[in-house]
Structures are given as C-alpha cells and as structure tokens.
C-alpha cells in the first residue's frame, strides 16, 4: 500500500505541475461567476438558474479532467518507458496500477471539492441558499469520479489515449441517459428484445444515480441515508470490477 501511495503522490504531483486542475478550476469559476453576476436576462433573483449553470459546469469539467488525466497515465508510462525503472524495483504491477488509480482519484476528488467550495462561496455572495442535499451531491460526485477513473484506467490498456478519451466521454454521456430510455421503452418491448434490454439495464453502470444536482437546484430535502449507503456500495462494486479487469490486463502486458 505504501508503494501505491508513493506512485499516487507522483501522479498527483504530475497533474498539478502540468497545471491541468488549475486551468479547469479557473475556467469553471469564470463561467459560473459570469452566470451569477451578468444579469443578461433582465430579471433578478434567478437562483435556480445560477445553481443549474454551476452544477452543469462543475459536472462537465470534472468528468473531462478525470477522463483526460486517467486516459494518459499508463499509455504514456509505457510509451515513454518511465515504467521500466519503476517496475525494476520490488513493486508489483498491481501496486503500480492501484497507485495510478489512487493518484487520479484523489486529484479528481480534490477538483470536485474545490469546485464545491467555489460554488458555495458564489452562492453565499449572491444570497442563494443550498440545503444539506448539496453536500450529499458533492459526496456522490466524488464517488462517481472514482468509478470513472477505474473505468478509464481499464480502457487505457486497450485503447490509445485519444480513442480512450472519446470513448470514455461518450460512455459517460450514454451512462447518464440510457437508463431513462430503457425505462420509457420497456413497456413496448417483448420477448428477446425485452430480456436483452433488461440485461443491459442491470449490467451497464448508471452514472445518473450519482447526480443529485437536480435536487439541489430545485431545493429538495436530504435523501435518506440508505440511498447514500447503497450508492457507496454500488460505486465501490463497479470500481472494483474495472480495477480487477484493468489490473489483470496490466499484469499480463509485455513491456
């Protein structure tokens, strides 16, 4: 575990020295601030609009930076051969893989937290109140970046970085929306297509379940504790699946 932490530390250091998180955080803040301060619509007190823009920007940028960072980790190590001196040391490939996972996950979680603080400050300045559900939304978003990181790291061992970013972003979009489509058309299906659709529904991860932003935007109360527990287990399970798949693949790659 210590060795994974050492690799995670270097991964985080790389992200910050490349200045990726800074760019994203500043850009996000600028967009949200603009939404809050620029009264384009000639109407005051548009709380929901500001919250909506804030969460949309946050969600999109967090997913983008998570995917972009995770997608390049292992391929660049292999291409640049920085992996050679690393793996010549008494450290397992599993530890290296987990270290990368930890590093990207911690960095992306930090970005989520920074965005959340930015939003809270902005809302406070504009006199917009948010309930406790805001913090639940932040927690679920943090869970989702860990799951996305695992998925992208796993895919990075079979796809080039560019293809991985494209495919992963499309998968994230699809995972946000496919569930509603299946639920809507379910009653119209029969036979094999019904079974196949249900299998897809149960197997494919549901990213929309990690998104509490609508409840925050529209001022809903806290969700029950069992929901948070269930989502934690759900996220951990899918992260585990992708980690196992990725680790297995990474341990068998010829360098």
């Amino acid at each position, binding site marked *: 575990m210590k060795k994974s932490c*050492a690799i995670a530390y*270097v991964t985080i250091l790389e992200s910050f020295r490349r200045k990726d998180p800074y760019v994203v955080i500043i850009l996000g803040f600028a967009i949200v601030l603009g939404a809050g301060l620029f009264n384009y619509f000639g109407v005051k007190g548009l709380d929901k609009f500001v919250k909506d823009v804030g969460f949309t920007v946050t969600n999109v940028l967090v997913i983008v930076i998570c995917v972009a960072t995770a997608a390049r980790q292992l391929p660049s190590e292999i291409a640049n*051969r*920085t992996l*050679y*001196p690393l793996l010549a*040391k*008494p*450290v397992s490939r599993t530890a290296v893989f987990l270290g990368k996972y930890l590093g990207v996950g911690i960095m992306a979680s930090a970005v989520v937290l920074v965005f959340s603080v930015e939003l809270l400050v902005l809302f406070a300045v504009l006199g917009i109140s948010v309930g406790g559900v805001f913090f639940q939304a932040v927690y679920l978003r943090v869970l989702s970046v860990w799951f996305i990181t695992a998925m992208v790291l796993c895919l990075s061992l079979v796809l080039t970085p560019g293809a991985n970013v494209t495919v992963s972003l499309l998968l994230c979009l699809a995972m946000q929306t496919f569930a509603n489509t299946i639920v809507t058309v379910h009653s119209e299906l029969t036979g094999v297509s019904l079974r196949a659709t249900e299998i897809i529904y149960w197997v494919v991860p549901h990213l929309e379940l990690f998104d509490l932003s609508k409840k925050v935007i529209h001022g809903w109360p806290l969700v029950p504790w069992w929901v948070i527990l269930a989502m934690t287990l759900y996220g951990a399970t899918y992260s585990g699946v992708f980690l196992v798949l990725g680790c297995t693949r990474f341990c068998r790659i010829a*360098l």
Partner: protein
Amino acid sequence: MPETVPPVIEITDLWVEYKTPGRRLTAVSGLNLSIDKGEVVGFIGPNGAGKTTTIKVLIGFLSPTRGQVRVFGERAGGIEARRRMGYLPEVALYYPFLTAREALRLYARLADIPPDGREETISALLGRVGLTGREDESLRTFSKGMLQRVGIAQAIMGAPDLLILDEITSGLDPVARHDVRKLLLEFKARGKTVFFSSHELSEVTLLCDRVILIDAGKVIEERSLDTLMDLIQRYVTVAEIESLPDSLPEGVFLQSVQGKRYSFVAESPKGQTELATMLEGLDARVVSTGQEAGSLEDYFVRTIGHKIT
C-alpha cells in the same frame, strides 16, 4: 557437504516469441546460460540478437514462451528477485516533472530503503554520479548523459547484489564512461554480480570475467575473457630476408615492409611455427618476435559473420 550456492542467473532453454500480425517472431531460441555470484559477464551481439529481450525476461517485463529463468533461485521477475537487483535500461526516461532528488526519492521508497537515512543515501548517490548541485533541477532540463547518470544512481541504489545494465555507457561522455567503469570495478571488487550488454568491445575487455556472444537468439560462443584474449592473441615476427616468397603459410599475414626487413603476423601458435619453418628455409635473420592483442571485433566478425553494431 558444503552447501552449493545456486547461480545468480540461470537460464534454461529460453524461448521468447512475439506474435505480430501474420507471423510469429522468435527473439530468443533455446538460450542457455548461467552466471555465478561475483562474476562480471558481458553480453554482446549485433542488433536484434536478443540481448534486450533476454534482459527483459530477467527483470520480468516479458514472460518466456518456453523455458525457465531463475534469478537468485527465484522465478525471474518476482518481487524478491527484483529486490536484490538493480537495472539500468538502454533508453529510459525519468519523470520530467520531477527533480533528480524527487525521482531518486520515489525509487528509494519503491526499493524499500528505510526512511531513516534515506535522504543521506540519495545525496550520496547524487554525489557519486556527479550530479551534486543539480539535484533540485527538473529532469526536463537534463541532457541525455545526465539522465543516464540518474539512471545509474537509481540502479545502484540499495547496493543490489546483481546489477543488470543494458548498453552501459550509451550516451555518456568519456569522463562519465570512465566513472561508470570505475563504479563497476568497485562493484566487482565487492563481490557483486554484474551482467551487462554493450556494443563497446573495449568495455568488455576492461570489465568482464566472461563474455557471452549471442546472435539470432542463440548463444554463439561463451568464453572466459582470458581464453578469449588468448584466442585473439597475435604473434609478430620481424625478419630480414632477400625477397618475399610467393605465398605465406595459412593464418600468417605481412604486416609491414621496411627495406629487407619484413614484419609478419601469425594468428595462432601453429601459424607462427609454420612461419618459422618458412624463414629457416629462406635463410632469414630473425630480428625480433613478440605478441600483441588482436582485435576483438575482428574475432567476432569472423565468428558470427557480420559486424557487431
């Protein structure tokens, strides 16, 4: 009964095959070699001979298609085997966003160097490879030679029992090469085992106890350095004769002519004996005889049929 120490490296019938689209490429075919504790072994061969592939199998970057590879009696690539070895790759980049000190700190943590004294170890290593004063600069600013020094530092970190070096002096200036040789000789003096590949045959003669010549994935020749040097020994005879005969014995060459003084070179004692018989028949007056070291490169070119590059 004295306990036998297993070889540090033991390779038995190693085969490594790569699957490329449409065909199967055999990089190593039936390689056998054994290296004992304290030996310094040079591993030489032309490009594509299978040197780097063999080294990758020893480290664990590749799995053998067939055969058995053991390091310190353990399966090659295992954690315990890697704990006792240091590796310098032929071409390696180190994280450009780290400083030299940070990079060595990372490798020290991975090599289980205890936290107490870790920083002192790193400082000493940086001094040893001539990077004092540059330790807090980003590796992005380092030249190839300086990166190679960082590589050497991480390879010798923790005083490993086995040092595996792939193209040891590639990219180094002459001063740095001298330092590396000195370092390896120190290792040798301390009874450590060194296994290195190199194109520089002069490195081989200066450092090795044994030389393994590999080509097309197979060991072509394996000799101790003394035996090899004997093999490539040349016998020089300078004699005064009236005129040069039409032909010379096999393995004997004319090196130079100065008036009536001819300098002959025989590649073997047999050739020298035949030369002596010829000169006796010509009533020659032998001015001097001696021995000189032959060209290792010439020897290998003859052995494997093409240049080592």
